[in-house]
Each structure stands twice: as structure tokens, then as C-alpha cells.
């Protein structure tokens, strides 16, 4: 290990010309961009994806995912016109598949904001290659998430009066003392701020595409969305400030969103939900699941779009490290929940946790533990962190495991009510499964359309981290 470092050091010193002390600290590290592309190459690589005709593979995939999404929409309409009774929800399991999916999708979004905001504040330059697509995933995941609580209201067309403080003929207001309403504001704000952040990042790249556009529709669309951006430094000055402010406020925002989602459970009095560890546990789990999804899609996208030069093995390895760190936090939370259940001396609490691991849904619990805690331990090995296929397979396990985590929390806490006479079981119906599959289809369709028509890499940000991009004689 140390000899490798030493070799790197010597090599860099030789390049820098005989061991001057002015070695850039970054040059001791693995480069973020492979080869020595110039600004032109960055523009070309990213624009080529958009300017080329869609491939056959793209059409086929988008048709398949679109069909899945259409099936989801059909089953949503079926639910709406027939009633929530077509779902498997019952007494005592009043929240089940739908809220599991809601929490699952919201969680997916958190990786995008972590990459775009928190890593920006920590000056983690490796974020530049992956932030655009991760932010896109955030927005698409939140769209998928929002579907579930809205259709769960049963009559979505009047739901706006139950969700937002709008004046109505009954002079009633929404209940601001309920965590469910906090959630409306948290998720609504999260969606709006993520979309704004994403758009601001895209403006300079749309300008790049506008100046290259050949066909009329492209020219018009990119002119419209680039807002007349010219790259003027007086504009960049305010732009960078705005970006910093957005990153600064998105950081507490992303932590607050899953905190408030966890309040939906933690503020209630259900054993298994009523715990103070929920907010940090949910946030860690959200980032964990989000990175899982980012890896799943990114490993395929970098290959298909020829972005290996910019999304390097180093990026994959860094993401795997984040995955492992947050996975360990989640594992810790699983453990501490059991400890507190025992330590609290509360018989209901104890029962819930023993039932979680050994009861009728024990298989779901152990699936969750295997996928989220045991399998990611493989990432202790550098070889595995840098192995694309194994990383991809593990990321799929993480996606599955984190879906089961929410299922376990929601369904196992509810299916054994306080009185054994009200015990029950939950089994999803075909409608439940179809709607979830439909949101997967919708998510993938939106991502495919994004990957084809919107710059998948932040062109201007990557140019800013190319070797020699910034002035040497620092004026700041």
C-alpha cells in the first residue's frame, strides 16, 4: 500500500519536473477523468449522445418500460374507479404495499441530493461525473413516490383539499398537528427544490447544446431552456453563489425529508414504530438505497453511452464505500432496535421484535438482513469494490433489501395488533404488484428519456475539473 503511494508520488514528482514542492495534492490521487480529454472532447462526448439518432436498443427498451408504466397506469385507474378494496390492505394492516413503495421511492431519491449537495459542500470533486444523473433519479423517484399516497386517498381528485391548506366550503383546515401533513410539505418542498437545483445545473449545458443544435426543434428547445445563457463571468458569479446557497439549503433539507417520513411512524404509538432511532436510521437507509439504485443504473449507462472515461472505476469504488458506510449504519440500527426492545422492558415492544425475526414474516426480515447487512460486507475487499459485475449484482440486492426493510417495518408492526383477536396477515393482490411494477416502468422510462435528450454529465462542471482547467497562480 505505502509502496504504491510512494511510486505514485515519485511519478508525479518526475512529471512536475524534479521534485518541486508544488505538487498538487490531487495528483497523488487517481485521476477523476481518464486519458487527457480537452474541453472539446467533453462537449463532444456528451452532445453526441443527444445529437445521434436513438438506437434500436433504446427504442426497444423504452417500449418495454413504457408498456410496464402503461400497465401501472391502467391498474391505478382500475383502483380509482373500483376502490381501494382491490388492494390487499385490511384491518389490522391498513398501511401495506402502497406506503412501503412510497418510502422506498422517496429513499431512492436521497442519493441524488447527497451527491449534488452534501458532496458539493465537502468539495468532493468526484461528484461531478455522477451528479446530473443521480439528481435526475431523485426527481423521477419522487414522482413515483408521490403516486402512492395520492392514490391511497381513494379519491385523488379531492385529495388536494386534504393535503393542502385550501379554503373550502366547510371552512375546515388541514391538520397541522399531524405528521402526515408534515410529510406533504417535506416531500413537496423536496421535489420543488430538487427540480430547481437540477434545472440550474442544466442551464449552462443547455446553452452548449443550443450553440451546436442543427435542427429547428432542438435549437428552439435548447434556446428556451438555456434561458439565454452566454457563459458571461458576471453571470457565473451569481450562478455560483446561487448554486452554493442551493447546496447549503438542500443539505438540511435532504436530512429533514426522511426524518419527517420516519415521523409518520415514530410519532404514532404502534410498538415497532414508536422509536427515537427512526430519523437517523431512515436517513442512513435512504442514502444506502439511493446509492444502490444509482449504481444499478450508472453501471449500465456508462457502458451504453460510452462514458467510461468520465465515470471511472474510481467513481464506482467511491460509491461502494458510501454504500458500505451507510449499510453499516443501517445494520447498527437493526441491532440497536432489538437491544432497546429488550432493554425497555415493554412486553409489547419485545413481542413485536421477536415476532419480526421469528414470526410469520420472518422470511422477509432475514431477506432484509441478508441483502442490506451481510452481502455488502463483501465491499471490505478492494477487488470487489472495483469489480463492475459483482458491484452491479450487490446493488440489486441492496434495492431488494431496502424494499423489504420498509415492508418489514410497516407490515410486521401492524399485523399483530394489541389483541390477538384482531391479528391478521397481509397478502398483496395482483393490483398491488402491478402498480409497483408500473412505477418501476415509469422510473426507467423517465430515466431513458433523460439519458437520451438531456446531458447525462454536467458538461460545464467536468470542464472545470479537467487537468489545467483552473489558473495556476491562484488569485483567490
Amino acid at each position, binding site marked *: 500500500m505505502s509502496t504504491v503511494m510512494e511510486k505514485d508520488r515519485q511519478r508525479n514528482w518526475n512529471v512536475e519536473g524534479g521534485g518541486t514542492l508544488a505538487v498538487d495534492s490531487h495528483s497523488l490521487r487517481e485521476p477523476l477523468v481518464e486519458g487527457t480529454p*480537452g*474541453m*472539446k472532447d467533453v*462537449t463532444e462526448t456528451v452532445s453526441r449522445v443527444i445529437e445521434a439518432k436513438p438506437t434500436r436498443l433504446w427504442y426497444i427498451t423504452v417500449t418495454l418500460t413504457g408498456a410496464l408504466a402503461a400497465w401501472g397506469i391502467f391498474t391505478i385507474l382500475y383502483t380509482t374507479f373500483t376502490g381501494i378494496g382491490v388492494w390487499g390492505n385490511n384491518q389490522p394492516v391498513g398501511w401495506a404495499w402502497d406506503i412501503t413503495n412510497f418510502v422506498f421511492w422517496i429513499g431512492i431519491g436521497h442519493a441524488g441530493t447527497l451527491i449534488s449537495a452534501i458532496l458539493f459542500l465537502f468539495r468532493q470533486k468526484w461528484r461531478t461525473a455522477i451528479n446530473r444523473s443521480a439528481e435526475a433519479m431523485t426527481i423521477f423517484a419522487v414522482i413515483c413516490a408521490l403516486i402512492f399516497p395520492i392514490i391511497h386517498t381513494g379519491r385523488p381528485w379531492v385529495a388536494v383539499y386534504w393535503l393542502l*391548506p385550501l379554503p373550502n366550503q366547510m371552512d*375546515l*383546515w388541514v*391538520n*397541522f*398537528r*399531524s405528521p402526515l*401533513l*408534515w410529510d406533504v*410539505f*417535506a416531500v413537496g*418542498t423536496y421535489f*420543488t*427544490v430538487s427540480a*430547481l437545483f437540477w434545472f*440550474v445545473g442544466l442551464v*449552462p449545458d443547455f*446553452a*452548449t447544446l443550443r*450553440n451546436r443544435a442543427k435542427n429547428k426543434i432542438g435549437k428552439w428547445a435548447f*434556446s428556451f431552456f438555456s*434561458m*439565454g*445563457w*452566454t*457563459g*458571461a*463571468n*458576471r*453571470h*457565473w*458569479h*451569481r*450562478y455560483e*453563489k*446561487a448554486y452554493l*446557497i*442551493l447546496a447549503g439549503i*438542500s443539505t*438540511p*433539507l435532504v436530512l*429533514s425529508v426522511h426524518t419527517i417520513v420516519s*415521523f409518520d411512524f415514530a410519532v404514532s404509538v404502534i410498538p415497532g414504530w414508536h422509536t427515537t432511532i427512526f430519523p437517523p436510521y431512515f436517513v442512513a437507509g435512504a442514502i444506502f438505497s439511493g446509492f444502490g439504485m444509482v449504481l444499478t443504473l450508472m453501471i449500465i449507462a456508462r457502458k451504453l453511452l460510452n462514458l467510461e472515461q468520465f465515470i471511472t472505476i474510481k467513481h464506482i469504488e467511491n460509491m461502494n464505500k458510501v454504500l458500505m458506510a451507510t449499510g453499516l449504519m443501517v445494520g447498527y440500527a437493526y441491532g440497536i432496535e432489538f437491544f432497546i426492545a429488550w432493554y425497555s422492558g415493554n412486553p409489547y415492544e419485545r413481542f413485536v421484535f421477536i415476532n419480526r425475526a421469528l414470526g410469520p414474516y420472518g422470511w422477509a426480515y432475514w431477506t432484509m438482513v441478508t441483502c442490506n447487512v451481510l452481502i455488502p460486507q463483501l465491499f471490505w475487499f478492494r477487488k470487489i469494490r472495483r469489480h463492475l459485475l459483482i458491484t452491479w449484482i450487490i446493488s440489486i440486492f441492496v434495492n431488494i433489501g431496502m424494499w423489504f426493510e420498509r415492508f418489514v417495518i410497516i407490515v410486521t408492526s401492524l399485523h399483530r395488533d394489541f389483541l390477538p383477536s384482531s391479528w391478521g396477515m397481509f397478502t398483496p393482490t395482483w393490483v398491488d404488484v402491478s402498480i409497483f411494477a408500473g412505477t418501476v416502468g415509469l422510473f426507467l422510462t423517465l430515466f431513458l428519456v433523460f439519458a437520451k435528450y438531456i446531458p447525462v454529465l454536467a*458538461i*460545464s462542471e467536468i*470542464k*472545470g475539473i479537467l487537468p*489545467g*482547467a*483552473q*489558473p*495556476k*497562480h*491562484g*488569485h*483567490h
Partner: protein
Amino acid sequence: MNKTAGISGIFQDPDLVLKAAEGIRREGYRKYDFHTPYPLHGLDAAMGIKRTILPWIAFGAGLLGAAVALHLQWWTGAVDYPLVIGGKPFFAFEPSIPITFELTILATAIATVVGMFALNRLPQWFSKWQNDPQFQRATDDAFVVTVDAEDPLYHTDKTRALLESLGAEHVRVVEYHEE
């Protein structure tokens, strides 16, 4: 009718850009700018750009968001239609924190983005420079300097000579068509 937008030139080396910015500024020009594919560190200082007031706009909007949120929760719950729900108080600060926080963030974000575009006078459908192929490289692979013809110090030959002496390449007068 064709009008003169000003003079433009391009740079390839970021270090030269900083030197040129200081040079143009020292001459006393006000209406000039550098158009770059990405923000260059140190260029703001070299051009002498004043700190933007954007953070104050964002801060003000944040305070406004917090005030609106608190007022909304207090007025609807404790004044307009007090309703006992689970024996909880009509209004208390503790359960009001989440929504107050979220609306603070929401207002700050919207004000930051709208404020940034407004201060930059964007969106703009037309720029005097836009049809100059050299200028379009500013979003691709070159740093483009522009000196506006409306600057009081603007002089076709002198400005051109200044830019050339500062290391700009392809210095030329740019015209645009006014409708």
C-alpha cells in the same frame, strides 16, 4: 441595419484570462465581460466584480417563509377554526417546526433561483453576440472576451490593440442585425 456589438477575442490559457481581465480593468473599461465554458477561479477578483446581493435576497425570503409558515399554522389552528384533536394544544411551537423548516427552505430556494436569473437579466431571447461563431465557442472550448461598443472608452483601433497586447487571439469587431 447592422450595428456594432463590440470587439471580441478568444483565449485558450486560463492564466492569460486573469491577466487580461486585470489589464482591461486597469484601462478603465466597464462594459466588458469574459464568457467561459465553466467558472474560472479568481476571475471575479481580477475583473473586480462586486459581491452579489443574492445571499441577502435568499436570507430575506427564508425569513419570510418561516413567518408565513408560523402564521399559517397558528391562525388556521388557533384562531380561524380551533378544533380539539387528540387533546393537543391548538398551537404550539414544537409540532410547528417541521412545516416552518420546510417552508423556509422552499422560499429560500425559489428566491435564490428567481433572484439569480433576475439579477443576471435572464431569460433573454437575444444577445448581440449570439450569431458570432467565435462567441459560440464560449460554451464549448474557449474563453471569449467581449468589450461592448457602448463602453465610453470603446475605440475600434485602441480597444483592438489593447486586447491583442493582452494576448487575445482572433480579435475582431462583431456586428449584429437589428430588427
